[in-house]
């Protein structure tokens, strides 16, 4: 599974890295570090990734196979 954060949509609510602390983290400005990036989701982080995508208030997180 891959996880993509759409940079322009991300408003820094900070909910994703709270839901998936072992997958996502915040940068020094309070945004998730991987704006406009796609990362591979390890198998043991799939559930956390789904939680993060589901909680994003801006629907800025996309999961793809």
């Amino acid at each position, binding site marked *: 599974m891959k996880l993509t954060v759409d940079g322009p949509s991300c*408003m*820094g*609510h*900070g*909910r994703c*890295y*709270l839901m998936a*602390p072992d997958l996502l983290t*915040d940068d*020094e*400005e*309070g945004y998730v570090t991987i704006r406009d990036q796609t990362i591979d989701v390890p198998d043991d982080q799939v559930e956390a990734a789904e939680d993060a995508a*589901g*909680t*994003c*208030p*801006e*629907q800025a997180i996309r999961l793809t196979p």
Partner: protein
Amino acid sequence: MSDTLSHSETAGRDLGGCPVMHRDFAPAQAAGYHWELADELRETSPVFFNAFAQGYWVFTRHDAVRDIYKTPELFSSESITPWQPDPIYRFVPTQIDAPDHIKYRRIVNPWFSPRAIDAAEPAMRALCRRLVEETAPAGGCDFVTGFALRYPTEAFLSVAGIDPADADLFVPWVEDFFGGFSGDPAGLEPMAEALEGIREYWVAALAERRSDPVPREGDLASHLLHSTFDGRPLTDSELLDMLTVLVLAGLDTTRGTMGYLFQHLAEHPEHRQRLIEEPELIPSAVEEVLRFYTIIFGDGRKVARDAEFHGVQLKQGDMVYGLVSGANRDPRAYERAGEFVIDRERNNHMGFANGPHRCLGMHLARRELQLAVEEWLRIIPDFQVAAAEPLEERGGGAMMTLTRLPLAWEVPS
């Protein structure tokens, strides 16, 4: 509320047909009044010119408020109170614009990151539990004075590495400062004295730490003394402006939100029960509190250049006021906007503002609120509002907060 004066000119200004009103948002009101007012203003006028003080534009809907937050190059944070374009205080980094703003935020952000709050959680939970346990045997309390200001103050001081006993000093300062923040002339002198008290406290704290060769572990003031801005140490005035705003922003806001959260729980036993049975819902309940009971009535900005914005012509130096409280209940932006939905998903409220000035303390505030619900419901699962008279809230020029919230519960004999 039909106090529209005219549709033409005020203070010699051609307002292009925009409605003009004269509204003083400051006086205390019945609890919940400010949300009803924001709802009504939003549904009757997307924008109007308020001829109060020097006059300022008021935007009432979600799209405009969001655009104000997301366009900091047009909307400067030099003043955040529209009735006071040149305030007597200077909050850093709150009132700093790009490019310096982010340099200050980088200094303080790590202190309030989720990791920092995780580390502080055991201490915060312990002092929250102690306060609830001390309160429980009485069978009742004024929640506002007994818990809602005390707990966030102690929690903040603990995060900042200050003795929580100093809460006794900070609590009255915070009261007096926000008594004047709304523009009430009678509150200006106590406000200035409170500011002076807070500044003197930090002057002494900084003096005591200044000669330390390395930063003290877990001590915010000491950390700031060892921080740099563009390669130079922070000046005394920067240090004081930063520490002062942290106190003021961190304590009153959480107190206000906490009051409405517990009023809601006291009046909705079904929601108390749901959170006891499904504690995993507490974070989404807290987000819904931040949306539905947004204590920031509005947020001000100063216009940096002439521009057309949502149908009106703004001039450089004009003040604007975005009614966040109403925007967060805008049915154009939210389904079931006027309902408290305890398990609401994807709650993109602006309770912590939006854009670059998004609340520095949002992770701390969320955690404080979550811990308060967890600990209170564990020790006092069943409680009611016990007020003989209707509840009141402080004027909404600044931040709403209940002036008192008497709660009562059965004490097992």
